[in-house]
């Protein structure tokens, strides 16, 4: 089985987000970048499936060269090779076209990615890629089992879950608890250095959306403290002052 895992390169979850250049660019100063947490789940499950069924595992990243440490980390975790599409991914549509273009050349059986990236939170790339390839897409997938060509998926739906069976090829957006995140070991880190990382140029795409500017939320006012002995006052304040109850 040929598996493709798409990873994002995003600020670590604890990062404070600020902007530069008159609020037109993310301030990357002092920000630590990581593989998107949901993509890490996809990668972890892909490594297990590869071990189970044999076959190959490629990681794909649409982004600039500064993501290479994260791509190497994915190789250290267990991918065989990597492709980087050399372009700044500013729009889901653009990203999806690049992924679909690579996927078409190699016909993967399974394309996994996170349910959403934690920078833009769009959660639309799997659907776009699925449609562009003319294959099924499901998200968010919490459990994935494969037997031959048959796939069993547990997917989160509002206040519950849905279990479905489908056939490969598929595009899936993943989330916990599909697998435990894997930490690269020393041997993985050593071999990752010699695994192939191919850099390709993007295919051209009509401009769909263009970011204009960024802003931070308004600062929060001070918290009103209520003594524990008068806890019930809270309910009155929520009713009369905040006018919520």
């Amino acid at each position, binding site marked *: 089985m040929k598996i493709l895992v798409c990873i994002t390169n995003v600020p670590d979850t*604890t990062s404070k987000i600020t902007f530069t250049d008159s609020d037109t660019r993310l301030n990357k100063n002092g920000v630590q970048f990581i593989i998107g947490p949901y993509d890490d789940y996809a990668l972890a499950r892909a490594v297990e499936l590869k071990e189970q069924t044999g076959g190959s595992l490629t990681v794909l990243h649409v982004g600039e060269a500064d993501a290479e440490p994260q791509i190497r980390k994915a190789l250290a975790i267990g991918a065989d090779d990597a492709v980087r599409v050399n372009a700044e991914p500013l729009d*889901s549509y653009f990203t999806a076209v690049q992924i679909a273009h690579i996927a078409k050349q190699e016909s993967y059986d399974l394309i996994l990615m996170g349910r959403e990236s934690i920078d833009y939170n769009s959660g*639309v790339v799997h659907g776009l890629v*699925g449609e562009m390839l003319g294959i099924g897409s499901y998200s968010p997938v919490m459990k994935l089992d494969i037997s031959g060509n048959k796939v069993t998926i547990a997917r989160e739906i509002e206040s519950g879950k849905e279990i479905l069976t489908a056939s490969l090829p598929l595009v899936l957006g993943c989330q916990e608890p599909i697998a435990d995140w894997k930490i690269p070991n020393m041997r993985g880190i050593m071999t990752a250095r010699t695994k192939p990382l191919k850099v390709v140029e993007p295919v051209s795409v009509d401009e769909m959306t263009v970011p204009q500017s960024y802003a931070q939320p308004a600062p929060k006012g001070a918290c009103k403290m209520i003594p*524990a002995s008068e*806890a019930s006052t809270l309910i009155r304040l929520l009713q009369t002052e*905040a006018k919520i109850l």
Partner: protein
Amino acid sequence: MSVLIYIELDNGSIKKTSLETVAYGAKVAAQTGGKAIVLAIGKADSGELEKAGDFGAEKVLHASDEKLAHENSMAYADLLVQAAETTQSKIIVLPKSGLGDAMAARAAAKLKAGIVSGVTALPETQGSFNVTRSIFTGKAFATVEIKSDIKILVVKKNAIELDESSVGTVKATVEIFTPSLRDTDFEATVVEVEKASGEVSLTEADIIVSGGRGMKGPENWQPLLDLANALGAATGCSKPVSDLDWRPHHEHIGQTGIKVAPNLYIACGISGAIQHLAGVNGSKCIVVINKDPEAPFFKAADYGIVGDVFEILPKLTEAVKAIK
């Protein structure tokens, strides 16, 4: 030129977030000089669908084929595209949800449309078409220009204030919509659906009472559930709580869980790690109960009580019952 608005149904009723989507779409239609037309998929009676008129929709297209009973983003996206073509809509509006995003994505690829998900305010439509969206899980906003001819907006809860003053006065016309269904959209088989019954859904909820590791164990959840019951609230939890199986995974709120935007979020024994805050920063009012006065959550709160949750929760429940 029309604006096509997809609405989600829950047991035959229009979800509250979808009523917001209708109001949002109708305002965009007014701004751009078009009609607001709604697409509803699934079982619902006309009386319920007519309610879309209260928030500015003229017409509701209703598709209720038995094959569409299960949420199916691929078939639903096909219908959305067919409805957009029939109504000649160049702007499509959907509510932000797992289904909304998935439908929007498949439809965008079919229509070669620019898609912006997580929209938080009405667009600027003078000259270029600009929308503001939430990014970095609520830690920032981006203003994005949509350049494509067809535009798809996936709208977050609370992007618009619902004006209830015309409720019950205007009815939308309901038309049966018979799309052509493709077999390829129905290749997967739904084996089982497990839905927690009778629960207020987190993404729809106006009030959420949420518990963290400070609740000490699943056996201690009753006082929290009592308060939630008294308030008619949904219940949520922090990530360690769902990781430990104290509460089901679909209650997990935060950066890697569900993003919520209630009017009132009450956090009980949750420290307020940045990853948890990222999922709740859309809330209008935050109450924090924590025995540690240094808990970071207090910095994000509107009201705070330093104390033991097990002493405070019953007092709050009593106070709520007293005012109801």
